[in-house]
């Protein structure tokens, strides 16, 4: 491969001479300039300024800029994602310190525990991508529709998640896995015929069209009823099935969850099943909200949004509309300034406090307590063959701590790209308002999972463990101790006094509390008003809109709704939210091989396009997409665009 003829060009006088002899360059030759980035933002004005690159803010930036709005998108951190970021262990250490220094509003009580020294606990920080707010994506959900419509999915990789475990009677004996259809979800041999029939009756009810008068009537009559009483009273279901339906399938967190909310959540699971295969949920590889935020930021950048990290808003004059930034730039903001709660500039702190805590309708704050543990185990015991993640749910009162609320855990191993292979990360959280209880609940759930894992692999224990596994003497329990110890936690040297237990080998354990103004049941998102949601609360006359911290919801539900609230507040309506027809990238499609595979994919699409969610339970034509039968996967997508996905039905992605 002769790249070019060097001889020919050497004959040039210009090339024979060293470049020094040319007119002196403006910048001294190869001197200085280690960092080539500009400092000032060369921009006179922008329409909208967004502070914080969290999930909602990033989707908003992309939505606005694709409508031709000039967006300036800044973050005071050195990374994307804001409070929804995906961090390395080193970043997480720094993050914890900042939380405890009070530099990150709405986070508190951060603790990080890394056992052993550098010799016994070897890891590379960069190998980890730890989400501050991990989430799972239902296969039928508004965010997924938007990812496809906006083409942001092309920057991401999704993997299936089909294993949901419920902890019950001190065991994880219920598994929703390996189901080939919705009917099989409950294919537990121990179920009596009567129970099975009651379950089927309920499934049929839940999948009936919402407009069905009988269903409407029944739901109306029971709108104040808790789901537990409803399932017992109307369908004669028993506790194990109820637990599974309400806490695992429905991912509800409290026994007091009202029937309509719970029914919607159970249905969300069921209609998501079989959309892409025999699983209801996906997770994005390499990280959840942090990764998706980056995807939307990239999309926004392509549409013209200007990005700058490590930059604060220092001042803003509402009369001249000039915003001053920490890098010294002054930019006129024509329309609105959107500010995430973790990016709040000092000069706006009192404005924000007054808005949130006004006398008429002060907004309640909700706590989310999280415990994230990186363990040296792949936890395949809890996952299907092809999968790398699982959900574990501890229903209320299932733990020795008598937990009032569910503890929900996402488990992801190295196959999801967030940690090295042979390891996994357990992301657990609870919305328990009492922080001491919350921490005890999470620690107790951790112990149960650990015990279960050790028990499940007991037969292999002797073979698998070597001396290395027993070196760690300090207990990993950062919560199951006296509150004093918890609060006096110090980086690197904490918890050494605890009773050593023979345990799972831990790489890193992180705990923290996040605050949010979003109710765990998302009522102030789906029924947002000026009195319950800070987005709508800020007066129309104000140039500034404050956003919310993410909720405790395990799925991405509510994210798009919230983004649209802000979008409407800026533009007056959400009618043109991502109303974009992406016509580029279609130049290709001249390859015979690709073309034939496209046909197959298109056929699948047509076959599935007519499945209405109301009769999904009866439909059976599983096209198991996503397993190894489909290696071509995304390779052929650009050719697909000619056929259908983005063209026809783009307006129907509304919830």
């Amino acid at each position, binding site marked *: *491969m002769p790249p*070019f003829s060097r001889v020919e060009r050497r004959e*040039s*006088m210009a*090339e024979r*001479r*060293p*470049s020094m002899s*040319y*007119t002196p*360059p403006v*910048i001294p030759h190869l001197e200085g*300039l280690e*960092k*080539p980035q*500009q400092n000032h933002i060369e921009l006179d004005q922008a329409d909208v300024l967004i502070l914080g690159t969290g999930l909602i803010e990033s989707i908003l930036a992309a939505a606005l800029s694709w409508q031709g709005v000039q967006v300036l998108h800044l973050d005071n951190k050195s990374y994307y994602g804001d409070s929804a970021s995906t961090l390395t262990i080193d970043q997480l250490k720094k993050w914890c310190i900042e939380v405890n220094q009070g530099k990150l509003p709405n986070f508190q009580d951060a603790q990080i525990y890394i056992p052993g020294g550098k010799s016994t606990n070897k890891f*590379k920080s960069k*190998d980890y*991508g730890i989400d501050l707010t991990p989430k799972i994506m*239902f296969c*039928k*959900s508004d*965010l*997924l529709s938007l*990812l*496809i419509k906006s083409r942001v999915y092309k920057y991401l990789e999704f*993997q299936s998640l089909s294993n949901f475990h419920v902890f019950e009677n001190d065991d994880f004996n219920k598994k929703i896995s390996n189901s080939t259809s919705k009917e099989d979800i409950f294919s537990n041999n121990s179920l009596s015929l009567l129970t099975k029939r009651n379950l089927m009756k309920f499934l049929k009810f839940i999948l009936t069209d*919402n407009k069905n008068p009988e269903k409407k009537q029944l739901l109306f009559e029971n709108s104040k009823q808790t789901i537990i009483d409803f399932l017992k009273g109307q369908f004669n279901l028993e506790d194990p099935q109820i637990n599974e339906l309400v806490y695992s399938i429905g991912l509800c967190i409290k026994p007091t969850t009202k029937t309509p909310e719970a029914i*919607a959540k159970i249905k*969300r699971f069921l209609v998501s099943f079989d959309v*892409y295969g025999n699983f209801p949920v996906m997770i994005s590889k*390499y990280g959840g909200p942090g*990764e998706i935020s*980056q995807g939307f930021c*990239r999309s926004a*950048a*392509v549409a*013209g949004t*200007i990005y*700058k990290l490590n*930059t604060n808003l220092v001042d803003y004059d509402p009369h001249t509309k000039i915003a001053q930034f920490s890098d010294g730039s002054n930019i006129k903001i024509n329309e609105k300034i959107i500010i995430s709660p973790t990016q709040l500039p000092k000069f706006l702190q009192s404005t924000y406090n007054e808005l949130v805590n006004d006398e008429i309708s002060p907004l309640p704050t909700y706590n989310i307590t999280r415990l994230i543990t990186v363990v040296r185990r792949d936890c395949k015991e809890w996952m299907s063959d*092809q999968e790398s993640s699982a959900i574990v749910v501890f229903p209320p009162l299932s733990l020795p701590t008598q937990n009032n609320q569910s503890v929900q855990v996402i488990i992801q191993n190295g196959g999801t*790209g*967030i*940690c090295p292979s042979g390891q996994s990360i357990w992301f657990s959280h609870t919305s328990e308002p009492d922080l001491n209880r919350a921490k005890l609940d999470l620690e107790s759930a951790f112990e149960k999972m650990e015990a279960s894992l050790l028990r499940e692999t007991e037969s292999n224990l002797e073979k698998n463990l070597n001396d290395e596994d027993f070196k760690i003497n300090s207990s990993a329990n950062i919560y199951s101790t006296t509150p004093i110890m918890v609060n006096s936690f110090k980086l690197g040297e904490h918890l050494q006094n605890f009773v050593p237990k023979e345990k799972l080998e831990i790489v890193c354990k992180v705990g923290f509390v996040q605050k949010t103004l979003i109710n765990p049941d998302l009522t102030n998102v789906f029924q947002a008003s000026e009195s319950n949601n800070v987005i709508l609360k800020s007066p129309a006359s104000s140039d500034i809109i404050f956003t919310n911290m993410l909720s405790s919801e395990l799925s991405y539900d*509510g994210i798009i709704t919230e983004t649209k609230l802000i979008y409407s507040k800026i533009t007056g309506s959400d009618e043109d939210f991502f109303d974009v027809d992406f016509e580029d*990238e279609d130049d290709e499609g001249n*390859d015979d091989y690709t073309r034939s595979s496209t046909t197959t994919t298109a056929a*699948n*699409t047509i076959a599935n*396009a007519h499945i209405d969610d109301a009769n999904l339970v009866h439909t059976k034509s599983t096209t198991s*997409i996503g397993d190894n039968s489909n*290696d071509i996967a*995304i390779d052929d997508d650009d050719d697909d665009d000619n056929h*259908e*996905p983005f063209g*026809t039905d*783009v307006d*129907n992605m509304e*919830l």
Partner: protein
Amino acid sequence: MSFPNPTTSVKLVLLGEAAVGKSSLVLRFVSNEFQENKEPTIGAAFLTQKCTIGSKVIKYEIWDTAGQERFASLAPMYYRNAQAAIVVYDITKPASFIKARHWVKELHEQASKDITIALVGNKYDLVKNDSGEEDDSENSLRKVSIEEGQNLADEEGILFFETSAKDGFNVNEVFIGIGNHIPESNNNSNNPLGGNSNGNNEGRIDLTSNANNINRSGGGECAC
């Protein structure tokens, strides 16, 4: 790891100072076009182009910086699983060459270890008449000599080309050179974050196949 498809997908990222011709270079390669006064961005996701090299077919997924490089604000996503990178500078702008050096360093830090990097001095069309009648170096637009480019490439152990996106000179050679250099591996790297995505499609869901279905019915907030 049996791939029925002989096509290898390669994620290729572009780096370099603004206005050195990153997008033009790609546009020339992808569609054999050159647009004067091109708007400084490209398509919605990334451009793709197949490239046949001997018996293998490489499908490049080419990611443009979309301007996010300007304030050192490229996301980790940009570098992840990139198997190839083109660092572009303008041979008439020495500052752009200095920045190229920075980007090579950045790639060594951020990207996977086995990434194939090509250093490309663009805008050769502006200097190619130098050897002709106008043999006066004082008037030459060239400010970075070919030796300087080659030296940097040699130091860093990367490929080097001078190109003209405007007339197409040497552009295809860059992509062929990269294609020849990319290891034919589909092994999973030990480092999952900076690893090689090639052949690692296990469990990956093809979202395009059911996109219509999804768009049709939405979900999540069913008003039961």
